[in-house]
């Protein structure tokens, strides 16, 4: 293994390591624009120049590999001069419109200018003008003046999605990024180009002008858009999600996520059920817990056999674990049905047809999916009177519009319909009791992705309205019905759950790999 000396620090690295990576291992940052760890290395921006002892010219650290005995300086006078020159060159025609740029605060050009340049512009001529606010795709805007032509976005479309939408047109100081005339940057992962654009040249149309990035708080979470479970930074301001950004996880999503998943945060703030309701009247939790426990107890007394329960693969493992205990220990029913969103688009990269984040979690917690009835059986059972009381988690059903309508129509036949959900979705006003549950942003928990990987997500902000995590709602009802389930923290459920699932060898949850 080659030994290199970087700024006086000796380290040994794998053969084939680039100077940039070796320097990072030795604890030195080499500034870079065009280099991205997941993409090919064009070495076109020259921001990463370093001095190698004995070499005639400065070398691009992103591209040059270390050799044994190499002595590298990343902060020598020559390097500092080169860094200043490169930045001056890049900034020559740059509009420096940071005050109206979404990237400000997380812009490499801004950061590097402060760290490596910090000199006044010597340009006295007028700057080049290029295209501003160019809608290069349905989700992404392009600003030609801010673009530093690093080609990261082009390489993303060539090497990651293979869709090849982008290229450089014209040359020199007229060069800009474009699609082929008549085409758009419209692949299902297009906003990733805005993530990797080191400057504010590509920006997300959804996030544009929504929030200054330094106001955002970031919480480690998991996308709920499908069963892939892409790791995300859930970024929020004043109890509202402003955007999702992919969080690096080489086991799941690398640096990427799909556009649909990225925009799925909107569900958290749409059509929310915020107050406990009884027959359309808002109650507080105290009142609704009493009413619900009384009604459920009466229903159990009358006809314990006619109790149905819809379990949701949208809920976390912790929620499901308490659902299972509630079902088994309090309700004592075995008429279970599986809810969740219907299948949708899938591809051979990240997007999965199963639009539920936790089907594998249901499998692990309930020991398989064989005991669950499907939507048709659910409707039949309601219509035939086999079910008179229905307890439903979440509002989704894996059904087309017509079947869903049949379900909604059948609800009239029920003696008691209890809905425990995030959303109203037209079901809340039909429910005798509607109990508001909070979203994955408002609590913590675990989702098991399609691959069997158990991934924790953290709480970003307090529950909206009066909503509570599903598991806490089950605890309230269980206590009111005289069979308390006693947990205080999510991790207690988690510990018990993992013991249980290890014991019966069902799911084999692996810890999510740290970033």
């Amino acid at each position, binding site marked *: 293994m080659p030994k290199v000396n970087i700024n006086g620090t000796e380290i040994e690295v794998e053969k084939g390591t680039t100077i940039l990576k070796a320097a990072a291992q030795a604890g030195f940052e080499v500034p870079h624009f065009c280099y991205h760890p997941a993409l090919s290395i064009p070495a076109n921006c020259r921001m990463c120049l370093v001095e190698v002892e004995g070499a005639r010219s400065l070398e691009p650290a992103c591209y040059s590999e270390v050799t044994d005995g190499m002595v590298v300086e990343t902060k020598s006078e020559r390097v500092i001069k080169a860094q200043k020159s490169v930045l001056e060159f890049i900034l020559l025609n740059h509009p420096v419109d940071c005050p109206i740029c979404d990237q400000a605060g997380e812009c490499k050009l801004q950061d590097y200018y402060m760290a490596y340049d910090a000199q006044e512009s010597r340009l006295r001529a007028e700057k080049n003008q290029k295209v501003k606010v160019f809608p290069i795709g349905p989700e992404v805007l392009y600003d030609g003046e801010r673009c530093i032509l690093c080609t990261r976005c082009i390489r993303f479309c060539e090497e990651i999605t293979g869709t*090849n939408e*982008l*290229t*450089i*047109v*014209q*040359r020199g100081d007229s060069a800009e990024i*474009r*699609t*082929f005339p008549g085409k758009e940057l419209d692949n299902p992962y297009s906003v990733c180009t805005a993530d990797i654009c080191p400057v504010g040249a590509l920006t997300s149309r959804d996030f544009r002008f929504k929030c200054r990035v330094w106001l955002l708080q970031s919480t480690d979470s998991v996308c709920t858009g499908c069963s892939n479970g892409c790791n995300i930074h859930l970024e929020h301001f004043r109890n509202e999600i402003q955007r999702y950004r992919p969080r690096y996880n080489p086991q799941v999503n690398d640096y990427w996520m799909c556009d649909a998943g990225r925009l799925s945060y909107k569900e958290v703030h749409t059509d929310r059920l915020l107050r406990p309701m009884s027959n359309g009247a808002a109650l507080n939790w105290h009142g609704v817990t009493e009413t619900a426990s009384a009604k459920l107890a009466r229903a159990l007394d009358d006809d314990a056999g006619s109790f149905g329960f819809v379990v949701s693969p949208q809920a976390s493992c912790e929620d499901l674990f308490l659902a299972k205990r509630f079902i088994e220990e309090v309700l004592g029913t075995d008429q279970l049905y599986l809810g969740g969103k219907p299948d949708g688009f899938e591809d051979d990269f990240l997007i999965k047809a199963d639009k539920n984040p936790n089907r594998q979690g249901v499998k692990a917690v309930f020991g398989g999916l064989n005991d669950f009835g499907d939507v048709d059986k659910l409707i039949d059972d309601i219509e035939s009177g086999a079910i008179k009381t229905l307890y439903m988690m979440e509002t989704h059903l894996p059904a087309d519009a017509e079947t869903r309508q049949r379900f909604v129509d059948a609800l009239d036949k029920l003696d008691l319909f209890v809905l425990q959900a995030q959303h109203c979705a037209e079901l809340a006003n039909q429910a005798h009791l509607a109990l508001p549950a909070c979203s994955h942003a408002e609590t913590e928990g675990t989702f098991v992705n399609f691959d069997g990987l158990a991934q924790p997500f953290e709480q970003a902000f307090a529950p909206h309205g009066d909503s509570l995590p599903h598991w806490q709602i089950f605890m309230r009802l269980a206590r009111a019905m005289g069979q308390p389930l006693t947990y205080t923290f999510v991790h207690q459920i988690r510990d018990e759950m993992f013991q249980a699932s290890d014991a019966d060898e069902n799911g084999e949850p692996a810890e999510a790999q740290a970033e």
Partner: protein
Amino acid sequence: MAVEFSEEAEATFQDLISRYPNNLAAMLPVLHLAQSEFGWISVEVMDYVANRLDVHPTKVLNAATFYTMYNKQPIGKCHIQVCTTLSCALMGGYEIIDYLEDTLGIRVGETTPDGRFTLSEVECLASCGTAPMFQASFCDGEIEYFENLDAERVDEVLKELNEKLEALPLPKDMH
């Protein structure tokens, strides 16, 4: 008109791609071929070239817009490119431009109303020993140098060119 190589152009195309290790490498000569065949490089032509080379259209867009010698708009039948780099400048290149502007009634960058001539100013064309000079590129892909120019010689050349242009189609009508 459909964008498709004639039999003759097709033969040239096949020959061209056989000479390069991969199709991408044949991009520039094939674009020249396409320009002489279709008069100018429209979006349609780029698409066709991409198709024929089996590369993504953005690759063609990239190359075609990088080089100024591919005309992304139809120009005149004959493109007069006058050199004004050092030797030519010293030997009267600018006077040649002035004279051409007066005679043709257009400015640099423009095309005569009859669609015959487009006038440009360019850098050294490696004919410095016979300065001043211009290059004439025809819409059929032919290129000719005219050297040791003065006003008199330019008159002769224009006459010659005008005769030759009778037989050539307007680039904008070529596809």
